[in-house]
């Protein structure tokens, strides 16, 4: 399984990371090498193995239905690069 430039472009789009054209080749070859290296896991027969569901042996704890948070508009917007009238602002999206 070979990871080529066009695959990197696809993955980079999924991950929303712009990769300059001149770096694509190098990145593809690095990633291809890494994927080739991790493929050694295929040596192990795992047909009868269940994937690890949780690292720590505890149960998922539930919290009671109470409003304990929110109402902190300033804190929420404090670090926003662009905001207006209480909203976050991003370049317009056309549906």
């Amino acid at each position, binding site marked *: 399984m070979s990871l080529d430039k066009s695959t990197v472009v696809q993955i980079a789009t999924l991950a929303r990371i712009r990769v300059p054209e001149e770096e694509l080749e190098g990145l593809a070859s690095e990633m291809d090498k890494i994927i080739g290296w991790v493929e050694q896991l295929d040596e192990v027969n795992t047909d009868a193995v269940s994937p690890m569901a949780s690292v720590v042996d505890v149960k998922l704890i539930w919290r009671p*239905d109470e409003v304990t948070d929110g109402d*902190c508009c300033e804190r929420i917007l404090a670090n926003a690069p662009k905001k207006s009238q209480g*909203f976050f602002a991003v370049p317009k*999206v056309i549906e």
Partner: protein
Amino acid sequence: MTLLQGNTGDWEMVIGLEVHAQVISKAKLFSGAAATFGAEPNTQVSLVDAAMPGMLPVINQIAVEQAVRTGLGLNAKINLVSVFDRKNYFYPDLPPGYQISQFSQPIVGHGTIILDLDGGETREVGITRIHLEQDAGKSLHDQHPSHTFVDLNRSGVALMEIVSEPDMRSPEEAVAYLRKLRSVLRYLGTCDGNMEQGSLRCDANVSVRHPGEEFGTRCEIKNVNSVRFVQQAIEYEARRQIELVENNGVVELETRLFDSSNCTTRSMRSKEESHDYRYFPDPDLLPLEIDQEFVENIRASLPELPDAKKERLMSEYGLAEEDAGLLATERATADFYEEMTKGRDPKLACNWVTGDLFGVLNKSGVGIEESPVSAAMLGGLLDLISDGTLSGRLAKDVLEAMVETGKEAAVLVKERQLKQITDTGVIEAEVDKVLEVHTDKLAEYKAGKDKLFGFFVGQVMKATGGKANPGMVNEVLKAKLGS
């Protein structure tokens, strides 16, 4: 069987519905911020909802309970172990860049729901699964020329996604499904079913085929936020697909938006790239484990549901199926009816609720929970009909007055002297007076103009301020006119 006619023969519609129901809860699914509707932007957002660095989800107990309750109300299998998965995609109203949902192991499995169709017919439809997931925030595209504004109040609110089997075969069945589902959810208290506010949202999956053939490719139609629109969207989409296929086109597996301004569907440009959501179990959460005792406790607390309520109203009160169905649609209505009908004529009570009371509620635009007339008050009105104080006609006027003033029927009857006139002597005297005054009309009647009978009745009613018992007026007039 509902079939559409095409050029190449009959076509059958295959419809499945995905409903997102907002869980009734105070706080959100994985954060402690409030889940109420309509607050000022970004005031119901916790650090977790805003996906600040280092934030982690903690599950709200009520969401688990409500999902189980909903599953039980739909006769569904409850999965004692379920897993939360991340659904990864980028959008400004999805701060973490993933939605916490359930993909391969949902909390509720297969269930069923019974559709009430026209003419008293019913049909059972399958529910494929129900799972819990987070709602997204809101993107406002029309507040600014070059920017989209983002409000995260809704981000993280608990939703139940209820997926039906593709068992429906007509827009009417889809509507019946939605109505019944909404009714059940409201009965259970797990969702308020308010489509206008978006606490109940529907996506329709539509495909067409010649009867007996394999399923065709389906399209998912989003943005149908009323029952009426669901019907229109399905009708349009089915026709669109038939036309496409009959003209040698191919239906693409895609997502389409319903445009309510012209009742059409169109392809969604932003969803062009086939979505690779890269689902994987959320490592910030452990598998959700519930025990059978938890499920049984909820089962024991379930209210009587619409289908059972309808059956019981029919058997206990001798009501017709259609009437019982009407009363059972909303739990509050059925409760109102049962309180009102205690010790009274159930059929009379039913007519007054489904006829006059519903009329009053429609006019004032309120639900039965905010009825200006209580069950006790309406019952009091019925008593005055049963004991002959009021005619049915007068009672209608009294009801109007009760709504206006909030006073009880008996009080109003006394104040306004609305007791009906049933004294034969009095009625005869009034009839005589009317016939005396309208001798010309009397002559016309005698000459064969039968219609004028109603005119005489009307005049007597007018003269008595509406209080004369209409039945008796009829009898007396008949006798006097000798017909």
